[in-house]
């Protein structure tokens, strides 16, 4: 269980290889607010008494089939009742940029789910080509934009 104070940002990532992990830490580097980072490999679930203001989710996407399973478990098993009206942003990783235009990538799934839970969506959804992951400038630009509105 992890306790964070109000107005803090929490980055949650799910990574089978290292791409999502590397992206998450790159985002962390760009955020000038106090931020904590959590890996879903640790079976972390969002506790009801967890305190944060902004949530950034970093997740691989598997195209038109489904998103990374641990992220799904995290979303479904976490209790979101105490997190209504908090902010969230999404960085998805996949075969190419632009799954967000297909309505089928992880980003869209997460966005729909958390909007249903009455959280606020922050900024544009970032879709990163992670095969290979080499466009860090895109991540930098996006996370700086997010940082400016936190």
């Amino acid at each position, binding site marked *: 269980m992890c306790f964070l104070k109000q107005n803090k940002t929490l980055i949650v990532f799910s990574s089978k290889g290292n791409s999502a992990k590397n992206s998450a830490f790159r985002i962390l580097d760009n955020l000038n607010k106090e931020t904590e980072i959590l890996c879903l490999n640790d079976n972390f679930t969002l506790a009801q008494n967890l305190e944060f203001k902004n949530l950034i989710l970093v997740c691989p996407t598997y195209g038109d*089939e*489904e998103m990374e399973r641990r992220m799904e478990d995290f979303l479904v098993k976490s209790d979101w009742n105490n997190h209504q009206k908090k902010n969230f942003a999404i960085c998805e990783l996949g*075969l190419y940029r632009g799954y967000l235009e297909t309505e089928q990538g992880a980003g869209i799934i997460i966005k729909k789910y958390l909007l249903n839970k009455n959280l606020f969506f922050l900024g544009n959804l970032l879709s990163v080509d992670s095969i290979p992951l080499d466009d860090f400038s895109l991540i930098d630009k996006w996370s700086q934009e997010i940082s400016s509105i936190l």
Partner: protein
Amino acid sequence: MDDLFIIERLKKKISSPFLYEMKGNHCISLDLSQESIFGGNFRHHSETEKEKILLLISELEYLETLDLRKNLIQKIPQSFFNLKSLRDINLGSNDLVEFPEFLLQNENLEMLFLGCNQIKSIPEKFFLLKKIKSLHLHKNCIEHLPDEFTEFKNLEVIHLYLSMIKEYPESLFNCNKIKTISFGFNEFEHLPKEIGNLSELEYLTLICTNINSLPEEFCNLKKLKATRLFKNKITSLPKNIGNLVNLEQISLYQNDLKKLPESFKNLQNLKLLNLAKNKFDYFPGEISLLSNLEWLSFHDNPHEIIQPMDSSYKVISNKYDLWKVL
């Protein structure tokens, strides 16, 4: 048990809306893939509940169409051997590790979707399903795929990308009714010249392989409408690619192309062209001659289009460096 009674019991167990179709007293179609966000209607039910639901489904012995996609099913129960009238079944995006043997008795099967599972082996008897038209085996762990596709004389659609197959099934290139085919995410070094035998082919996907060229026979695919060839190592396109007069979309994103063949300008039906992440150090003039081009991507080449050739190009998305051709 009456089929409507079974449906009512399913409704209680599943507790979310789903589609079904009755013909007389018989349920002939059932779709449990439609839960709102993550997929299947009983995806997040317990394993015990899933077993009960599958048992009920197996009592609908007149089913012709069954969609169980995205329900995280680990095993198909023996009771599914009751189902013998299936024409169309979708078991995709589950957790199956074995080919469901009950399928083999459904000799009228035309559409089989097993994509996105962990199936390791396809049985030899699989080719007894001679009426198959559409076959989805992508995203699996197939170590053994019998090479007898000539038995599938009606095959029109086959997806094999990320299936872990080590080599092309040669017999596939004799199935001359194929309209859609996909390979990808493996160590393929070439595309066989026999691809040119597939005279009805309209959609070809070959992505994330080690191939560095396409055979000249690729240019025989006169009916080809769209091809995704991204993330390979293609250094050149076949000389006569302009013969593909029906081609409307081609994605060559992330290859090693430095130039286009002169005949490329003959692709006068081309609407979408993705040449991003290649090695062009100039803007190929052939592109400007494509009179029906609507969409072009050219980012991440040594020659970046900061301001394209003339005012006929308009940025439609800065984020993805897409260019709308006016």
